[in-house]
């Protein structure tokens, strides 16, 4: 185990910047923008050909956020701002249902195809509206983001139902995903000048901490109403990449609050537990699902390597290293960084593959589908670059 030298950190910074600006973004821009209907055509094959012209709503919000964020933090590039505008306009005009909920999938023209009960479309839309509002100076987008955020907090607190539940009330459970995503949404909203108080952030972190089980050395993906482990196959399933993503959201909050020791401790525990659980000792990389008790997992893609857990682990380990200086995190970062870039990066056409078999063979060569698009990868490249700029 060894720490990073200043030179190595500078090389890393340059690497992330170059891979974002010279590899990832050129893969997507400018073709991703739908000049006719607005929004993004993000479902692409390995070399960038369109494989489906439907529009995944998550991705519209995510990429609009990414573009506005680059505009806000990297360079006031008109192309990025206008690309972001195309996304937020499409979201506003086509992705809301009559009841104020958002769709999950729409056609290229913006006709609704699918609506889901959980409200992640809203989450990414708030991120997009808030950062675009900040970038453009058009306050209406921030106001819309505020309104949507407070509506989502209502869903989150169980005051308002976002839709008909699919489960009976026999075994109620809550998931890590919602408080986690809205923690980041709240942070982005706050930092864009929106209306999110630190009490709201604290409340969300409090909710997340309910999933951290120190006795089991793990972060649960789902727990019962009182935070208890539910001993059933789906409730036992852990998602290490997801928990690691949550870890860096909390570490980021700790950093923003001047290295808040309580939050640093919480974030590091989450990262430590789930690194142990998620790192594939045999082939490297963060594995998709694990059982909390080591029992067999229900989902048969459990041992695949998805692109995004690697991205999140790269951020989390680097951030943890920066905050704590603990050489362990430098080592982990080196491991996952090397593994990911060796196996996921498409050396021929740029960008990353999304789905590998456990041993590193490409499973699906798609660069974009309903879930994958220009988000986790460029976010990781941007975040790490910005982090290292401060070194």
């Amino acid at each position: 185990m060894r720490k990073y030298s200043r030179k190595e950190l500078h090389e890393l910074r340059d690497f992330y910047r170059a891979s974002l600006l010279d590899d990832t973004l050129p893969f997507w821009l400018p073709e991703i923008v739908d000049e006719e209907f607005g929004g993004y055509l993000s479902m692409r094959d390995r070399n960038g050909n369109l494989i489906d012209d439907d529009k995944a709503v998550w991705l519209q919000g995510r990429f609009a956020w990414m573009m506005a964020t680059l505009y806000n933090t990297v360079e006031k590039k008109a192309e990025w701002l206008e690309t972001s505008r195309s996304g937020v306009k499409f979201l506003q005009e086509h992705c809301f249902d009559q009841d104020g909920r958002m769709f999950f999938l729409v056609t290229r023209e913006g006709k609704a195809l699918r609506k889901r009960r959980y409200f992640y479309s809203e989450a990414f839309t708030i991120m997009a509206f808030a950062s675009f509002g900040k970038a453009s100076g058009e306050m209406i987008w921030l106001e819309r983001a505020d309104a949507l955020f407070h509506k989502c907090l209502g869903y989150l607190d169980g005051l308002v139902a976002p839709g008909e539940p699919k489960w009976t009330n026999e075994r109620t459970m809550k998931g890590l995903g919602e408080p986690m995503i809205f923690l980041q949404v709240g942070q982005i909203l706050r930092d864009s000048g929106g209306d999110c108080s630190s009490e709201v952030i604290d409340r969300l972190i409090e909710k997340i901490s309910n999933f951290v089980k120190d006795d089991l050395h793990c972060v649960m993906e789902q727990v019962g109403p009182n935070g208890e482990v539910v001993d059933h196959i789906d409730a036992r399933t852990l998602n290490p990449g997801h928990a690691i993503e949550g870890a860096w959201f909390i570490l980021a909050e700790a950093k923003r609050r001047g290295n808040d020791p309580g939050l640093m401790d919480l974030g590091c525990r989450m990262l430590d537990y789930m690194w142990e659980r998620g790192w594939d000792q045999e082939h490297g990389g963060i594995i998709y699902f694990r059982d909390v008790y080591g029992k067999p997992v229900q989902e048969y893609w459990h041992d695949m390597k998805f692109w995004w857990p690697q991205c999140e682990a790269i951020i989390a380990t680097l951030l943890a290293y920066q905050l704590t200086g603990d050489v362990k995190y430098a080592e982990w970062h080196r491991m996952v960084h090397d593994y990911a870039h060796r196996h996921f990066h498409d050396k021929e056409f740029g960008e990353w593959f999304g789905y590998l078999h456990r041993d590193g063979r490409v499973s699906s060569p798609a660069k974009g589908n309903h879930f994958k698009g220009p988000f986790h990868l460029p976010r990781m490249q941007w975040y790490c670059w910005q982090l290292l700029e401060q070194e």
Partner: protein
Amino acid sequence: MRIIFCWLLGCASAFGALSWDRLPDLPDREGFAGVYAGIVIDGGEDFLVVAGGANFPEKRPWEGGEKVFYDDVFILPLTKKGEWRKSKTKLPAKMGYGMSTSRDAGTCLFMGGKNASGAKDDVLSVSIKNGNVVIERIGALPAPMAEGVAVEMNGEVIVGAGGDGMTMTKEFYQMTLPDPTFVEWKALGWPEGGRGRVYPVGGVTGNKFYLFGGRDFADSDGEDSERIFDLDWLRDCWELDVKQGKWRRLRDLPVGRSAAPSVAVPVGASSLLMLGGVTVEFLRDQVEARPELKGQGMEHPGFPPSVLAYNVVTDRWSEVGSLPTEGTLPPVTTQLVFWEGKVILPTGEIKPGVRSPQVLIGEVRGTQLSFGFVNWVVVIAYFLGMVAIGYRFMMREAASSTEAFFRGSQRIPFWVAGLSIFATMLSAITFMAVPGTAYATNWNSYIGQWPILLIVPLVVMFYLPFYRRLNVTTAYEYLELRFNVATRVIGSVIFILFHVGRVAIVLYLPALALSSVTSINILVAIGVIGILCVIYTVMGGIEAVVWTDAIQALVLIGGALLCFGLVVSKVEGGVGAIALAMCEQSKGLTASWNPGDLSIGRSSQSGFVIFIAFMFANLPSYTSGQDVVQRYVTTASRKEAARSLWMNIGMVLVGSAIFFGLGTALFVFYQDRPDLMDPALPAKDSVLPFFIMQNLPVGVAGVIIAGVFAAAQSTISSSLNSVATAFTTDIYGRLLRPGSSDLQKLNVAKLVVIVLGVVGIGASSYLAIIKTDEVFLLFNRFIGFALGPLGGLFALGIFAKRPNGLAGLLALIGGVVMVTAVHFLNEFGIVDVMPLLYGAVGFLSTLILGLIVGIVFKAADDEVDGLTIWTQKNHEKIF
């Protein structure tokens, strides 16, 4: 778990005159009292803006909680049915309890208000530009002011009442905007003897401003029964005629009321609604229930939900339903906002010290009384009777020649012709509008019927001899004989055009009035009246028209008498009460007969001027309108024709008196029983059909409604036949196919009836669908400009020997130009002439011009032989 409130998705519930629904809740846990609110337009979309106000966020007032004021601005996209958002723009201070009003230009004004440090005088203009709220201070009120009212009236802002916390503002102000960034105020005064007040309700209807209730600091003037917490609840209500600057005291509220949503809702033609509000009796009940909390507390049941209606015609208050009380509570101390014919009540206080984020939206609902099976049977039987008459005359002769089709072979009895003239001149809308006018105003228009006393002798003595002796079919044939063919064709075309437009209107208006108060569909009404009318007119020609007219006249008068009798029997005091109303409540003849007052302006009350105006408005119809003149030539002799006209005098004077009396009776009836009046009654013309449907037994109502149909049909059938006559005789037979056979002419006449009927029904249905008749009325008004001159031309021909054809033509054109000129001078405010006088202007200017021009363009003696009253010597003498 809370329910998500969807946008007007069927969760509407019915509450009396208004049906209520909810808009998305304001995104605030508690909500506010005393907000500013209005409608703002940005990019063609409407937004509701709600700002400021105050609440008790931590503890209730009875727990020692502190009132907190806010400067937040919330926006709800209404057009796109969006979600609330909180603007990044704030009010200039944390404040509330001011006055707001929305402006036509798509901005709204937030005025005055207060906070812990005192009352405000700001006038803030609120707009949204590209989604961003912009709040600019454009001026100041004459004094700091809160808890008053503001309304918009014809684009002008009126604000007043309330106070600055120490003294009451005993004044109303009208805002003038010398330029959009600068505000000036014009004082409108304060009612004499009226106390200053906070939390009253203000309203606007019929160009007048109304002030209802409110409350004042306790004063020796107050009644004990209206006093609590050292405050007097006020019952007095006032009307301000802004133009004349006159305040008038109205009937008091049943009990003092204050703090209802600050603007009264105008509904229908003549009502204002006060939505909820607080009464002393209610407060006393609450104090009794929870004396330790002075009536406050969470157990408080919410404020009274009752909705009161003030009817400006009958000057009566009635309770007309309530605000919703399930899931929401009636709000007080909030700003009422009008939007697209609906009212919005955003947030507000629902219990003392408790607010709600609820947002209510209400829509006015008229009462639609079911027409029912039996009534339909009666109406259908009546219609079948009409068609049977047409069929009978077709079988007899009408289908065989133009002589029969246009003149009924001159064998119509005088009394049938007389009834027919009466029915033709009285359209269905008159049947409803005359009682409506007497109900809403007075008998002054009855003066308009009196000129018949002069018209009939004039016609009988000077016009009839020519029409009879010259054996004409259309009146315009006389014009060719006396002047030239051009005047004949022009006269005929003017007549035809006027009636083409008229058929559509005459069909549309009664159908509209009926469908507004009954379950009869407007298109069905238009179709039924129109189609059957065309059928019997085509089949039976003029004979069917005049015979059905006669029956229709009897049905009409009978129906009116029946209604009158019924109302009188239901009104306490009977005819005496009606007479009393005419004397004491200015419901009778109020016109001035002072010979010194001969004002011709639009607000003229001079009986003489009204008489002259109607004289010349009606004279052309009796002398140059083919629909009436045709009657003169359907009887066997001139004597018979004269008798039909003499008879018409009585019909007009007595018949219309019945209609006017009926209107006054309806006024007395609904003054007696304000609870029976539907505040949403759309127009004064609807009062008669509404009364009929509400109070007449099934079947009888059918007869009277059949009478309304009858009145429409008698007018339309006359138009159809007379237009066919004029077209066939003056255009087709004279210009297009001079040598055509009688059969050809007859077929053309029938075709014209059908085409005109179909066009009329189509145009009328189109009006019903687009729901406005402005364009048509405009068309008719302009064609109508030519009717007076046409009447003048006939008079010129008959009474003047000199003018020749060219002179006549020039005089006619000159007359039309004159009327049009007066009209436009009137529109631009250069002169002030009541439009009713246009007939006189046209008639007299044509006559005078003709006489002047006739000095130059003289007719030879043989050209006018037997065609003027001076050149009759070789013919039958008039005198």
